[in-house]
């Protein structure tokens, strides 16, 4: 076996970012001529059926351990054991706070090499090479591993989900004796940071608003459209700064990084600080009254016009189409 991928779940569903990592691991393992496996840690909600669905994303095996979920140290214990017993060469994480914590802990435990904030991985001469942006994303470096295992921690949503497998991963139960220190922390409560009620990182469709909305109430237009499309609302730093929308929805250098299928930017000029948070989006549509706005240079479809007129019409049209 060559690559072990950690898959996070919550309430019977795998997290989108983890599914991206699982797909990427399976693809890379194939290129290396090996196989990828996933590791899941949690309670009774990890049913055989649920675990087996990871096969859809290309892994042949799923290691399942019963241990507290959502905490890093127990997962480190589980992954360290699986890697040592089964001889994995690489461990892959989709990123996120938990991924970073587990990846770092595992690195320390195994004396491994680690690369963080990885945006792409390639197979070269039978080994994996991680690409990592440096100096505020102004340059990219290739990182190879001189020892085993190599730990690769992706940037959030760096890896695309690909359903290619046959959907029948073998589920193997692992019995792990947790370290003493791993049981010290207990989950008291799950909560979103800074009062977030939108999960923009997992949304397939985002309607993002910028200063061009003119005022805080302008976000109502974005919200209606997002509702009609079945998406979520995101915001730029400038409008979060101005108090028009909560920080949890902020995209960009000092906010979140997203890669939805559709990113609709309303009244956003497209400064580089914003671009680095959404450039991975599959389709970018921009509405701006300024034809010189930088966003038009990296959008797939650009509309020069008044968003106060365009957004309501678009919302109507989407509703009409959906019936």
């Amino acid at each position: 076996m060559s690559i072990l991928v950690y898959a996070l779940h919550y309430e019977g569903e795998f997290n989108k970012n983890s599914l991206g990592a699982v797909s990427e691991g399976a693809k890379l393992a194939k290129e290396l001529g090996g196989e990828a496996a996933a590791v899941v840690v949690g309670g009774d909600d990890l049913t055989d059926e649920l675990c087996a669905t990871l096969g859809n994303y290309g892994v042949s095996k799923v290691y399942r351990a019963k241990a507290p979920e959502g905490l890093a140290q127990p997962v480190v214990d589980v992954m360290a054991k699986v890697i040592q017993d089964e001889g994995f060469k690489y461990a892959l994480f989709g990123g996120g706070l938990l991924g970073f914590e587990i990846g770092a802990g595992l690195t320390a435990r195994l004396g491994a090499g680690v690369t963080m904030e990885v945006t792409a991985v390639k197979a070269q001469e039978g080994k994996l090479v991680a690409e990592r942006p440096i100096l505020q994303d102004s340059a990219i470096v290739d990182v190879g591993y001189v020892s085993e295992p190599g730990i690769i921690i992706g940037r959030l949503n760096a890896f695309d989900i690909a359903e290619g497998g046959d959907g029948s991963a073998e589920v193997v139960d692992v019995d792990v004796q947790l370290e003493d220190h791993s049981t010290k922390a207990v989950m008291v409560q799950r909560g979103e940071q800074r009062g977030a009620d939108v999960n923009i990182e997992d949304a397939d469709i985002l309607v993002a608003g910028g200063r061009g909305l003119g005022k805080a109430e302008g976000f109502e237009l974005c919200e209606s459209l997002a509702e009609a499309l079945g998406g979520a609302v995101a915001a730029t730093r400038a409008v979060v700064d101005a108090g028009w929308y909560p920080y949890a929805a902020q995209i960009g250098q000092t906010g979140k990084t997203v890669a939805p299928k559709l990113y609709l930017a309303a009244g956003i000029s497209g400064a580089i600080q914003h671009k680095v948070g959404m450039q991975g989006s599959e389709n970018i549509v921009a509405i701006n009254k300024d034809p010189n706005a930088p966003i038009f240079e990296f959008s797939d479809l650009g509309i020069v016009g008044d968003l106060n007129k365009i957004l309501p019409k678009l919302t109507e049209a989407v509703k009409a189409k959906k019936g």
Partner: protein
Amino acid sequence: MAVAPIEYPPPVEPDREFVTKPTDPEDERIEVGVVIVGGGPGGLACAIRLTQLLAEDEALMESLGEVPVALVEKGKGPGSHLLSGAMMKPSAMQKLFPDLPESDWPTFGPVDRDAIYLLPNRKRAIPLKPTPPPFRNHGNHVTSIAQLGRWLSQQAEEAGVYILGETSGHELLVEDGRVVGVRSGDKGRGRDGQELSNFEPGSDLIAKATVLAEGTAGHLTGAAIRHFDIGSEDPQQWELGVKEVWEVQKPLDRVIHTMGWPLHFAAKYREFGGSFIYPMGEDKVSMGLVVGLDYRDARFSVHDALQQLKSHPLVAEIIDGGKRVGWGAKTLPSGGYWARPRQLWAPGMTIVGDGAGMVNVPTLKGVHYAMHAGMHAAEAIYERLKAGGDCADLSNYQKKIAGSEFEKDTYRSRNMRQPFAKGFLVGGAIANMMEISGGRVPGGHWPTHDDATVPVFIGPEREYPKPDGKKTFDKLSSVFASGNATRDDAPNHIRIQDKVPLEVALMWQNMCPAQVYEVPDDQLEAATKDGKLDGKHEVKLQVTPSNCVQCGAITAKGGRLTPPEGGDGPNYQLT
């Protein structure tokens, strides 16, 4: 009458806010031998020289405790906030590292060809031959001061200096009329000053001697000069430099300076400055535009004028097919001889480098003066430590500076900068006279003026190029290239008045190379009467402090820059 920014002074009380007694309980204070504020060439040279001297006297070193020499740096590390041209005279490096061959210095090597051009317009360039003496740079080293700072900090750390990165010197600790150390700034405060979950209060760093090596528009330096009343009769003046580093296709074979376009020649604009273009090895070029902050037109922007300069054939050819790999901005003190603090020390404290105005404007040199001053400060402090340990009287530092290169060079050019207030042509003629006469004519004392007292007006719209993201850039892209990723909810560290006349507001908006100040559209509309802007109409500015690269221009032009949380701001690599 046009309005001068000084009529709208910033809400700041340096003596009350930035000068205090130690407040930590005695057993929680951090005791060090000597504390140096600022990891630039001056502070680091001081630290290195001190360790060199202390190495010869182990007993003295031990008497200074666990940390004989500490250095606090507000950037992520030494180098992060350093920016200069820079063309360095070799004398200070030779003195500090006498056994190190010049080929091992962290520089791009000495210069052997230089050229200066007058740009009369957007197309033409007239070479001035022979190169006037101030612009001759044979033997000087092209340097990235951000890299030099990192290298010096390695040398300092190896020598045992305790370097505290991401730590600002926020308050000067004064007890019984003498400086006893500095207090570092708090971390982890929210926008309204509230303590966040990661809040960490500052600490009192108590030292036998304190060296302020904060660089341009120094925060504690300014407070100290006022508190101890050691300033000069003449106010300090500043210039703002905006700089880019380019990766280029073919190596540049000479050092270039330009004067003239895109700056306005007419006297009413008072645009004094010029550009520099230096080769950084085979594949990079450092270029920038430096302009005196006593300019008058609120529409003028150094950042955008630099973008414009790149369209001049002389410059366009150099960067053709290249890529911008670095950007930054910084002010430099330009008041020269008359404006430097009258006294460079106060009981228990010395001031070195740009904070003390140690720049010679005509030759565009300052790095080596700062390093010399740092070494002088180290020697002066060492003498006092050796003679019993009391560093209250540091007048020996002043004596060393009085006999130094800096004093001689700036005396020779003491009246060179001031005449440019009469416009470029008259100023140029008088400055030439000073050069030719070896510093004798014009004699007398030409006073300097405070940049913020110069009235500003709203001139006609300027034809700055539309940023194309390849050759020309908008300010936000530039901020990004500076490596600035300051958290958005940090407290505002910039002090300006809330409501100011449009003239002043637009001047700040355009002056700031990092887009910290913006006049919102609705405010601009409210200030428009019959299709014309009313410069007197008071507007409210939108301020985005997290964009700030701490260049210091706002301090020169009517506001006040204070240090934000340690670690904030740019992370310069090549500047």
